[in-house]
């Protein structure tokens, strides 16, 4: 098992994600499994690193949301194959072991940004409890308590639904002040996130990728140290 071959497969996974080539990602993922390479390494330094470049391309306005979605599909094509074979010991030493509750708030049926963030949490090794969209506000609180998740991530695409997030932040922080709360969506700004008492925010699907990429990039650095 040469280092050269490992690098070759990581490059295939990376480029397959960036060029939203699902077949290429699937072929490389199968090769990783067949040839017995480290699966967690393939996820983090192949798939996730590819998505990191996608985030940069979005930032540079070379990619837009359609491309992000297609890249996400390519990433999932690989992740679906690889994830069941990740050695828990790898995740245990370098990756995240957290749980996150995620959903679009009541009154909002948009979920593109939410789904991209969900994907990045999954890549990073989190257990994700996806409540879907148009989620009644109390449901976030119930699910956080039930799962004892460390993070609650909420999305609202419109100003008209954003106010619901404030109520959820209040309800959750009242019961458990240590829960980290992430807000996302077009109307969400840093000011609003801090006014609502949240711990982080991303204003669009692209920014969501950037935020999540930063999180995963930190994990990759740890892994590579």
């Amino acid at each position: 098992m040469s280092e050269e071959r490992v690098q070759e497969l990581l490059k295939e996974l990376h480029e397959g994600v960036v060029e939203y080539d699902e077949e290429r990602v699937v072929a490389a993922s199968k090769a990783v499994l067949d040839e017995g390479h480290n699966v967690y390494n393939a996820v983090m330094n192949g798939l996730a690193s590819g998505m990191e470049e996608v985030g940069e391309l979005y930032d540079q306005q070379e990619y837009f949301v359609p491309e992000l979605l297609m890249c996400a599909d390519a990433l999932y094509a690989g992740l679906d194959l690889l994830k069941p074979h990740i050695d828990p010991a790898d995740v245990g030493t370098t990756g995240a072991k957290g749980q996150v509750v995620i959903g679009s708030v009541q009154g909002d049926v948009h979920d593109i940004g939410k789904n991209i963030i969900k994907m990045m949490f999954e890549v990073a090794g989190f257990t994700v409890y996806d409540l879907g969209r148009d989620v009644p506000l109390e449901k976030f609180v119930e699910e956080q308590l039930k799962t004892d998740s460390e993070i609650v991530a909420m999305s609202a695409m419109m100003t008209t639904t954003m106010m619901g997030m404030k109520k959820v932040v209040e309800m959750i922080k009242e019961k458990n002040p240590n829960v980290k709360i992430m807000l996302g969506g077009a109307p969400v700004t840093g000011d609003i996130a801090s006014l609502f008492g949240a711990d982080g925010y991303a204003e669009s699907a692209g920014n969501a990728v950037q935020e999540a990429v930063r999180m995963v990039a930190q994990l990759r650095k740890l892994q590579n140290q």
Partner: protein
Amino acid sequence: MTPKQRVQKFFRREPIDQMPLFSGMGTVTIQAIEKMQVRFAQVHTDAELMGRSAMESAKLWDLDGVVVPYDMCTPAEALGRGVTLYTDVEGILYPTVPTKWANLDEASLPADFSGIFSQARMPVVDGALKYCLGYEGGRYAVGGWVLGPFTLAGQVIELDVLLKGMAKDKERVSAFLGRMTDLVIAMAQHYQSLGVDYITIREMGSGTDLLSPRMWKNLIKPNLERVFQAISIPSVNHICGSTDLIVEMMADCGATAVSVDQKNNMAQSRQKLGNDAILLGNFDPYKTLVQMEPGQVEAVIKACVEGGVDAVWPGCDLWPDVKAENMRAYVAAVRKFGGAPTPAVGRL
């Protein structure tokens, strides 16, 4: 000069006494709804309540025009996609479409759209428009509005399918958007036949936060051109979100005016489009009318006028739960700074 005359002359670029105070998006506020002793959730299903809530808001704040309906679900609902009205939820939530077609194969559209005006809440909207048009002898300007073809498509079919399809399944998505364009035209012409003074086409999901300028040019612009060609009364091309990269193409679609939100660099847009273009915008209604202190509002409105708008428009629907003091400050600021001629419209 009545409010209606002011708005009509404005769109004809004729000199007017002062900047008209109106919008192409909802301007209903909670103060008017409370005065009527109803809840926000009730006004979406009753023509008189919808019309009255619009007119009460106009009277309360001295607006020149009104727009109904307040939610964007009516055509999707008429096509059988249902509606969630949130009647049992406290506070303000706009109706949403609960079930969208999962893919293009599932989408089922009628051969022609003339039958949809008797479906679901479409008659409620007609009734509300007629109420507003007849209010005080037709003294106020009344605007109709329709989602743009792409945004309307996103109301009936899953948006991610549509977005990915625009790159991967271009031919079929393009054909579907063509049918949505037929529907937008049918609705715009229907509202035109009821006698509204202007029509706003809100292609709000198509800014460059989402789509590349190239995709906008190829898949959005041709459909908007077809829509505006089919409208014979004043029309407004409104897009919220990032529009700096597409504002020239927006102006080239054939609408009477272009409306953008606070993300647009208005001074640059004015420079790009010249002084003949009617430009509308571009303050953040939630931040300005809900969050800010009343004393901060005047500077926001002044900046819009100095940026080169012909009428100060909010970038989106007003969030109904505005602060009364902020609304008063907004109206006062438009009156204060809107007395002078604007680039495209002179003063008496």
